[in-house]
Structures are given as C-alpha cells and as structure tokens.
C-alpha cells in the first residue's frame, strides 16, 4: 500500500510541477517577447515594475483579474463564456504526452518524465490541435460582432488549411521512428536528430506550426489594422487573458513538439536531459519572437496559395520520397 501511495504522490507532484512551470513560463514568455521586440526596435520595453521589469507579468495578472468582465448584450451567452477556456485547456492538455527528460530513478522507482506515454501520442497532439480551433471559432461567433466573426472565419480557414500540411509533415517522422509514441520518437533520435535526416519535413512542420500559432506572418485572424483585434475583439478582463495565455502556452507546446519530433528531444552532450530539452524549447520560442519582429503579414490569398499549392504537395511528395528511401534501405 505505501508503494502505491508513493506512486500516486509522484504522479501528483509531476502534474503540479508541469502545471506550475508551464503557466509561469507562459507569463514570462509574454515579458520576454515584449523586451526582445523592444530591443529589436531600439526601445527599452517594460522596465518599471521590479528589477528589469521582472514583476510585470504579476501586475498584468492583477490588472486582468480586477478588470470588468464585459458581456455584449447580443452575445450568445454560454458559448461566449466557455470559448476562452476551451482555447486555454486544449493548449494545456497537449503537454500530457510530451517527454521532457529521460526516465528518472527516485526512491527505488523508475519515474518516466512524461505524464502519460500514449502509444498514439502523435495523434493525440494532432487531435487536440484540431480541437483548439473551436475556442477561437466559437469565441468569434458568439460575440455577435462583425470584426470578431470575420476574424474567426479567417482563422478557421487558415487552421484547416495548415493542419493538413502539419499532419502530413509528421508522417515521415512516424515512418522513420516506426512509432506513434513521442518517447520512442525521441529514443530513435539518440544518434542523429531528424532535423538532419529529413530537413524538408522540418521546414514544412516549422512553417505550419507558425501558421497554427496565429502569429505574424500568419496573424490574419487578429490583424489589428483591419479587424480591431479579430476574434477576441469583444473580450475583456481575464477572459481575454485566457485567450492570451492560451496563445503563449500553445507557443511553448509547439516549441516542445518541434524539439521532440526534429531536434532529438532531451538528447545532448554534457548537460542533463531536462536542461537540454528546456534550452531547445526556449530557443524555438526565441525564434518565434524573432520571426514576429522581422516579417510582414501575408495577404489572405497568398496565405491560401502558399498552404494549398506549395506546402501540401511538398508534404505529400516528402511522404512518398521518405517511404521509397526507407524501403530501399530496408
């Protein structure tokens, strides 16, 4: 019985730690983004609250929590209230299958550093990322406002288009690792990461992931100068905050997915696995911020042409070529 209690305690500790780390990281990613963007644009960024502005996320949180939670008169009440939660929860749940380190030995027990190692981990990720669409779509529709509706229609079309390329770019990875389990995919990259073995899949996945995160250059669902704030125009207070935090949690998750699928996960010389994993994820997050500071927004027809006429055929071709090469090698 004590052994069982210990197992439960370890699982709970793991869950609590992941929850805490992800939420804190998301909050500080906002600060990091504001500071890095500011530096890239020759500004200072937030530096008033605490040393180097380190307490800014905390004061933002207090502001969002104490603001009025406004409900538009003609809004569809329940869907309007639920939508922000949907977008934050689907982002958080994805982390359940991400292995962030090699198995650990504690109290004579082997503790895998992953919440649950599903044998369909890749599909779990794809399923949740396709459900993440609902938060945005319903939020925009339920607001009963022109700008919000336009934003969510744009977002729906964009996410449907790029999800295909996203899923297809993962097929070669599954073929090479011969498994849907994220832990086994990381194990298969002990020698060479898939970034070097299959660069086209990496590039397609990276571009689709940026599109999936709805950030510049793919931020048409919330294009400020056309749609005010797109699908979350009517939201205020912590409900807006949930959309916002969900977006940054999503950023961390997508960074973790790139790390797992293409950068070899926790594998790396000298440093412990967890450190390598965090470094890789943070590097990807920095890349996202860098992209936002450097690129202009795409036009809508360019976005669609790029997704359907270039990315999708390339991803299909890559599946065929990888399959042929794998067969040839044996």
């Amino acid at each position, binding site marked *: 019985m004590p052994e069982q209690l210990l197992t439960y305690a370890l699982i709970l500790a793991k869950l609590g730690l992941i929850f805490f780390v992800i939420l804190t990281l998301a909050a500080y990613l906002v600060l990091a983004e504001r500071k890095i963007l500011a530096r890239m644009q020759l500004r200072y960024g937030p530096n008033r609250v605490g040393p180097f502005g380190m307490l800014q996320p905390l004061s933002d949180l207090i502001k969002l929590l104490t603001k009025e939670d406004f409900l538009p008169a003609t809004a569809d009440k329940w869907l309007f209230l639920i939508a922000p939660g949907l977008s934050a929860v689907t982002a958080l749940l994805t982390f359940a299958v991400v292995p962030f380190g090699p198995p650990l030995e504690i109290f004579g027990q082997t503790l895998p550093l992953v919440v649950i190692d599903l*044998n*369909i981990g890749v*599909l779990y990720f794809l399923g949740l990322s396709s*459900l993440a669409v609902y938060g945005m779509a*319903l939020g925009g529709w339920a607001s009963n406002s022109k700008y919000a509706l336009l934003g969510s229609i744009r977002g*729906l*079309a964009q996410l*449907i288009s790029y999800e295909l390329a996203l899923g297809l770019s993962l097929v070669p990875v599954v073929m090479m690792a011969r498994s849907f389990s994220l832990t086994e995919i990381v194990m298969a990259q002990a020698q060479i990461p898939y970034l070097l073995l299959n660069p086209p899949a990496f590039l397609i996945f990276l571009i689709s992931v940026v599109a999936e995160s709805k950030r510049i250059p793919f931020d048409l669902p919330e294009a400020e100068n056309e749609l005010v704030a797109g699908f979350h125009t009517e939201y205020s207070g912590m409900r807006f905050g949930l959309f916002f935090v969900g977006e940054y949690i999503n950023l961390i998750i997508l960074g973790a997915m790139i790390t797992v699928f293409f950068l070899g996960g926790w594998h790396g010389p000298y440093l412990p696995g967890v450190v390598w994993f965090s470094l890789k994820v943070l590097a990807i997050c920095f890349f996202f911020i860098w992209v936002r500071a450097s690129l202009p927004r795409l036009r809508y027809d360019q976005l669609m042409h790029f997704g359907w006429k270039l990315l999708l055929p390339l991803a299909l071709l890559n599946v065929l070529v990888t399959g042929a090469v794998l067969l040839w090698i044996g």
Partner: protein
Amino acid sequence: MSATLMFYILGAIAVIATLLAITRRNPVHAVIYLVNSFFALALLFYLLGAPLVAAWEVIIYAGAIMVLFLFIIMMLELAPGGETDRYGPNWVKWVPILLLAGALGACTLLLTSLDPTTADGVPRWYASPRDFGYALFKEYALAVEIVSFQLLFAAVGAFYVGKPESKRKGRGGEA
C-alpha cells in the same frame, strides 16, 4: 465494474447530445452538441480498447468535418429559427427516418447477438497502431482500395461541379 459504469455514462451522453443536436434550431448549437456526441463516442472507443480509432474519431470527425460545418454555417449566416414551416405534421416525411431507424435497430440487435470472441481480425481488447495497420492494409486491402476510389470519384465530381460554367462548356461533350 467502473468501466461498465463509464460505458453507460458515455453512451447516455452520446445519445442525449445527438438528440439535442437534431432538435436545436440554432445551427451552431447543433454543431456543438454533435461534437460533444463524437467526443463521447471517441471515449467509448478508447474504453473498448481501440485508442487508434478514438484518435481518428476526434481528429477527423470532431476536428475536421465539424470544423468545416461550422465554417460553412458562419459563412452562410443562417438566421436562427429559420425555415420552421418545414417541420409541419406531414407524416410522409417521417417514413425515411423511421426506415433508417428500423435498419439501425436491426443491425444493432444483430451485432450484439454475435459472440465477439469468435470474430477474427485484431484482438478485441487492445489494438495497437501496428496491429491495426496490418489488419487494415493486409486483410482488408481490397475494401480500402474500393473506398479510396469512391473518394477519388467524389473529389473529381466536386472539381467538375466547382468549375466555372464557361470553362466547362469550353471542353465540349467530353465529360
């Protein structure tokens, strides 16, 4: 025991959500209830030891097809509660539904009366992606090919219908 309880709870959710989906006048609400129903169905598949089918149910039905439905509904901007006169007391319209319900009921009876242990294919309790793939593409390869050809016909048909009128006539009687 708890698995059986879960089964009945999820089954009840699926049935109620589907009923609500049929009866709602607001199309977006109907879509949401249908997504809930698919979700419960996916969990049922997981409970019955088919995690792969559960994942496909969520990805394809809840994540792709229903999102497309939602997209079209938003584009069309259907007014909630429109076209109410269609639900008149015209009993002839109910015949196809009753026929379908009867056929479904008969199929369910037939399937539940079979002994699941004698059915071949993958082991019933736990189907890993590998076993599932082998069973699908080795034993049922012909069926998969036929279905995929049907999808191809549908796609070609959709391309033809979606083509602008002027271009279609330019090709003459080819099609």
